[in-house]
């Protein structure tokens, strides 16, 4: 056999040649069969965002030669890492109008939310045993509250109106003398609704209750100012603003001082609130992402408005019976949650497999249950089942949005044509009035 005389170098070339041939053939077969014509487009910016190349560029030195432990006080390696961490802290605090000393690095918004809610509850728990939150919060806030309920705390889950916004009057009447904390998210991750953070902050301040907000979807996208909005604690996530994953921060107000009980014990880093070595490379990336976000906020926001208007216009112009979930005005334009009546959301997602979309939160996207957020805003069961979330980012292009709109229209029309319910609806039969009999 000729192959026996081939030296190692040529052998690897040969392997590469043949494997390339096979992949080429596979791709050809796949494209003939009508699937796998390239990688899907990414329209799920609420789940995560791609890393900005500028962020990676800032991180690279700290992933290679500048590897010191930022807590090492005795040598150059430690000092340069510490300096980089402090610069990052400065960028983050600049973005939210805080003091750098008020920023605590965590592993992400989930940890920040846990630390804020459980930390406050455990520190002030002797006298104050009541917490207020909303029904549309992120799972990690609701679950932290659930855990506290097990410890004997009382939790009020505020309802929201049909647009997804809470009522300030209801909040005011829910606050009791023993209320320790109000935790309300700034921008909802599923429907993009913005809560009246400034008004809530003012109310909490006047009632002398701590106010925590989960701003993972808000920071870097809309203006957030902890002093102007009277926020006492705020959770931020790195990977939602084009930073790296695995890093987040908790803003903890110093004046007047907010005290927390830490979740973990250790070396006492981050003012003793979050022990463990601060991960320099991703902290640097997070800081750079915040710096860029501050500079680019206006530019990016205008782009989000353009893309979201384009998609909404294209879809509603051609398709009837499309409902936008959430408020039209008090909303972050980068998140568009639409319900297509008479079309099952999961089937549409399957049909749109060349676009990366989600029917709601990534954490619950594995289950077929309709989203609890849509249920909380009072969406009908059938509409809650037919929702799709379109998430745009800085890197989304007009071509991508047009492609998505086109595909979406095509498949919704196809799925509706197959549906007897749609036919009945077209004939003017009110489906909800039908009494379905069971056999």
């Amino acid at each position, binding site marked *: 056999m000729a192959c026996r005389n081939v030296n190692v170098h040529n052998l690897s070339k040969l392997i590469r040649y043949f494997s390339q041939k096979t992949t080429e053939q596979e791709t050809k077969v796949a494209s003939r069969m009508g699937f796998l014509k*390239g990688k899907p*487009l990414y329209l799920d910016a609420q789940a995560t965002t791609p890393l900005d*190349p500028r962020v*990676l560029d800032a991180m690279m030195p700290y992933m290679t030669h500048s590897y010191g432990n930022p807590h090492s006080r005795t040598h150059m390696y430690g000092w340069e890492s510490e300096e980089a961490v402090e610069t990052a802290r400065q960028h983050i605090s600049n973005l939210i109008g805080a003091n750098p000393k008020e920023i605590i690095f965590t592993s992400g918004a989930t940890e920040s939310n846990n630390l804020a809610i459980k930390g406050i509850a455990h520190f002030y728990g002797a006298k104050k045993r009541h917490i207020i939150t909303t029904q549309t919060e992120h799972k990690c806030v609701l679950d932290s509250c659930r855990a506290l309920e097990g410890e004997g705390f009382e939790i009020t889950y505020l309802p929201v109106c049909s647009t997804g916004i809470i009522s300030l009057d209801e909040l005011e009447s829910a606050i009791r003398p023993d209320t320790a904390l109000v935790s309300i998210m700034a921008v909802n991750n599923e429907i993009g609704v913005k809560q009246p953070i400034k008004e809530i902050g003012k109310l909490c301040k006047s009632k002398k209750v701590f106010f925590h907000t989960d701003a993972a979807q808000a920071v870097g996208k809309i203006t957030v100012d902890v002093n102007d909005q009277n926020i006492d604690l705020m959770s931020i996530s790195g990977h939602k603003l084009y930073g790296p994953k695995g890093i987040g921060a908790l803003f903890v107000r110093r004046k007047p001082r907010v005290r927390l009980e830490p979740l973990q014990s250790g070396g006492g880093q981050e003012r003793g609130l979050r022990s463990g070595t601060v991960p320099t490379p991703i902290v640097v990336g997070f800081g750079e992402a915040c710096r860029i976000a501050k500079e680019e906020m206006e530019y990016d926001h205008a782009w989000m408005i353009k893309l979201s208007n384009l998609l909404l216009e294209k879809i509603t112009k051609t398709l009837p019976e499309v409902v936008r979930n959430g408020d039209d005005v008090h909303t972050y334009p980068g998140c568009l949650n639409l319900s297509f009546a008479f079309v099952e959301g999961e089937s549409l997602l399957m049909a749109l497999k060349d676009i990366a979309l989600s029917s709601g939160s990534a954490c619950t996207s594995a289950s077929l249950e309709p989203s609890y957020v849509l249920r909380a805003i009072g969406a009908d069961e059938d509409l809650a089942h037919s929702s799709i979330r379109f998430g745009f980012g800085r*890197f989304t292009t007009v071509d991508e949005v047009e492609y998505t709109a086109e595909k979406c229209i095509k498949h919704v029309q196809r799925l509706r044509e197959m549906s007897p319910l749609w036919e009945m609806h077209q004939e003017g039969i009110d489906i909800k009035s039908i009494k379905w009999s069971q056999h």
Partner: protein
Amino acid sequence: MAAPVTRAEVLKIYKTMLRESSKFSFYNYRMYAVRRVKDAFREQKAVSDTSEIQQHLLEAHRFLDIIKRQVIVGDLYKFDKLVIEVKNNEKN
């Protein structure tokens, strides 16, 4: 006092930035970089203060370096093209 920046100098860096941006192998980075460079120069068109122009030019050079480095990083790993690129190629 620094020497005033000539029109040719600005045009040169603008063209180089556009050329380098179009080398990003990842579709979304490429489209963003080209759009951002164009819009940035358009935004700063009206700037007439010499020291401010000097400042913008320095910034542009810093960005050019980032683009060049990140294009290399992007080329190091192979990944599939997006559906939209495959579709556009078929059209052409």
